[in-house]
């Protein structure tokens, strides 16, 4: 089964619907976690394959990981402020299959933290999802709004708990610990489009670079921890 997981909150009420619409014909089931909603909005009734979930507390972006997944499911983690193209799921699954032998997890938004990452945002190499990437790259971290993996590759909710605001980092740590390479796929400009949002969902956590987050980042940082693509797919005849 192809499953999409999204977390949202009330200030994104306009964006989430558009996001859901862009994905509605592309998956068997779309789980949307409605943080800080009093009730699941009525509009989801328009989409028979959307399941609305109300968490007991605001778990923010951890919501993407709260739904139980079967090992063989194909899981797409998506964001509530992105408009996904009609071929998104098919393309992503095809990309995942391309690297299936290496058990890679693929995504569109990738970040490389160099080995001496100093905590500054500008010290990262970012392959932003909105822009073209000519060739695939292994990365330190994938944005979990553009990730595709198998159910068995998903972390437990317990693993992700406490990582609200930096689930991407925690997810990358999970992948590294399991030996799943992270690959940022090639694509054209504006294949994915960001909606005009009024506020960043996880603003406080995203900008602060708290020491604890840095500690987690340092666990995934570095070229030392990333194999080049050729080695991952086993086609490399490189010498080094």
């Amino acid at each position, binding site marked *: 089964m192809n499953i999409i997981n999204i977390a949202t909150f009330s*200030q994104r009420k306009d964006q989430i619907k558009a996001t859901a619409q862009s994905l509605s014909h592309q998956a068997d089931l779309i789980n949307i976690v409605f943080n800080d909603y009093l009730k699941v909005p009525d509009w989801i009734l328009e989409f028979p394959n959307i399941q609305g979930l109300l968490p007991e507390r605001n778990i923010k972006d951890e919501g993407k990981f709260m739904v139980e997944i079967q090992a063989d499911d194909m899981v797409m983690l998506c964001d509530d402020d992105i408009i996904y193209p009609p071929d998104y799921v098919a393309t992503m699954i095809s990309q995942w299959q391309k690297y299936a032998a290496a058990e890679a997890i693929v995504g569109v938004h990738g970040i*490389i933290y*160099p*080995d*001496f*990452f*100093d*905590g*500054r*945002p*500008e*010290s*990262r*190499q*970012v*392959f*932003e999802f*909105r*822009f073209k990437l000519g060739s695939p790259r*292994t990365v330190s971290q994938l944005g979990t709004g553009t990730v595709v993996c198998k159910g068995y590759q998903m972390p437990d909710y317990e693993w992700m708990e406490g990582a609200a605001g930096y689930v991407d980092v925690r997810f990358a740590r999970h992948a590294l610990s399991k030996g799943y390479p992270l690959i940022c796929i090639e694509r054209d400009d504006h294949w994915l489009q*960001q909606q*005009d*949002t*009024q*506020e*960043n969902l996880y*603003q*406080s956590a*995203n*900008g*602060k*670079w*708290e*020491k604890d*987050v*840095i*500690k987690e980042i*340092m666990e995934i940082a*570095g*070229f*030392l921890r*990333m*194999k*080049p*693509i*050729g*080695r991952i797919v086993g086609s*490399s005849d*490189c*010498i*080094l």
Partner: protein
Amino acid sequence: MDLLNNSRFQNLQPKIDSFGFSLDGSWFIECSDQETLENLTVNTQSKKAGLIIRAEKVNGWVRLLQKIDPSEIFSHTLEFYMMATGMSGDDPGYTLDWIELLKSNENNSLEHFCRIASEVDLRIEETTATYRVAMPTFNSGIGYYLAIQMSSPGIVLFSDLRLSSLVANKRLPLFATRQHSFASSQATYSAPLINAKGELSKALERVNRQAAFAAMENEVKWLLNYTEVALRLECYEVSLAILQHVEERAENISVDTFSWFAVLVLTTLRALGEEEKARRFMFRYCNQMNFKNMKLVTLNSLIMNNHQEQDYVLPSGELNFALMDLRGIQPESLLKFLVRDDLNIGEENRMLISASTFGRIDLGLWRFHMNNFLKLKECPTIAEIDPNKSKRSVLHRLKFAPNANSHNGPLISIIMSVFNAESTLKMAVQSLLQQSYRNIEVLLCDDACTDDSLAAACSLAQEDQRIRVFRSIRNQGPYNIRNAMIGEARGDIITFHDADDMALPTRIFEQYQAYMSTGAQMIFCKWLRFRFDGGIFFFADQVAHRLSLVSLMAGKELFERFGPYRSVLCGGDSEFYEKVRDALGEQAVYVIDKPLVFASWSSTSLTRMPGYESNETGYRAPVRRSFSQMNSMQRMLGNDVLSDDEIDAALVNMGVYRSPSAIEEVHPDLAVVSRVIEQELKKNRKPKQKNGGKTKSAPTTTES
């Protein structure tokens, strides 16, 4: 962009201009109507208070505006940071309508360009928030404004507003009343390298800062720059990992860039001891390299040390005496080689190569060429070489001209850790006692030697009262010894010397002079390293005349501030050196460009000992590489990322950690007597057993 600092705030009287006024040219207040404007107070009281906007009656809206120069902050991802508080009447807290970037249109009025945030709740306590914004494309011909809008009565105090480009590493100060930033917050992180003054830290900071550009511009160039820094940090595994990523794109790399890449590859592989891989690399990619005089045999010589004449020339056209053994060359062919006009090797290297080579024929020739070099460097020259063909090394046989002048000044303490240095100790210590600078004390500390070093030290001390002798209860390595001896030193100026090295007679005086006159806190000299027969070691970077970290001379307070040395067998010197450089900057370091130390590079030297070696071909033993990497990581990224405890634990695992242990001062007479008694007892108890040099104790000498 630090929004608030852009203005020179004073208590400003509104200058009515339509429904608004200018604060100082960069900030504006704009209101929707006259009544709102008339009920508005803007107060900047003091830098600490920040910018206060009090809106008593608002019919429409009030906007705080600042013009932004897009060329300063051009980027597709911006970050807006705000620290503010707010009150609405008697209610704690205030909600701002929105924060936006506006642009001027054809009618010269402002219109929406990009929303940063809306319905921003401020609390009565200081509130901070950060917003990342994906920007539409800027147009250089249009004016842009940052705008913050409020539309209900209340008071808002902005204490810090910043707009930063995540890509261009530009932070435009919009408004800051205090030093609030990510870096200064208790809960947040800032890497030490960002503010470090050391040249290497600055280099890393620069290349880190360029990371965001790398994805859009020349990524391979950035990766190679990063590799260069990693190599300077002696992080060879990191270097290799980056180069592996570059190799995947080898087919698309320009010839010139490929040559750069290849040099980095070879340097890295040499350090890692991956000779076979290096050879395969060169065979595979030789067509893509743009080296001059490239021949396979020449390339091969980089790795294989083939002693062919052409091996003297690196593919780059430079002399490759780093990776070959000069001793394997016939002097006649070397002579032909040295007079070649097309070799730009420099006068100094020509002299040293000559000394190294012709010294095998005749020590007189060795002295002739060495003295040419020493004269060039304005050093004391070698007066005599003991003709006695004993089995002693050339260094033991050198005599320098007696000092015409002697110098005095404050007491300088010279610390020497001694481990199984019986055969070299006398030569090393006498070279100190014969210094032209007379007011010295030499602190010899026996690091639980298994030979007769202690007795040798004691008998030297009996002859010269400037020597003090100590002994360690357990073997603990040179850096623990240094830490203990710094505590024992009576001089306010301290330096070090290895137990198998010779100091030229002016070493201490020249370093003292530099210490007093340059203002630098760390004074070093250079050294040459010699084989037993006088052959000179050139290194992979083609340099023989090198910085001697052991020669550090500094005030005692420097060690109190930046010490102690780590309790490690190797690399402690470098760690201390870089730590001070980062804190005090390059001006803290002064290196005398003279070979004031002649070092013997024997197998007992730590830098030559298997498992700990750092040799002239560029190879670094794994424990050295690991420590360098951890050391660099901590220095650059801070103890929060890698603590001392974590490093020490790793060093323990690698077997290069040594716990400090007790040290006692030894009276020279007592030591000699007790040693004799001990030897006699041994003779009577059992047959004498040779240790065979198989001790696992820490060697005597420190680092290159």
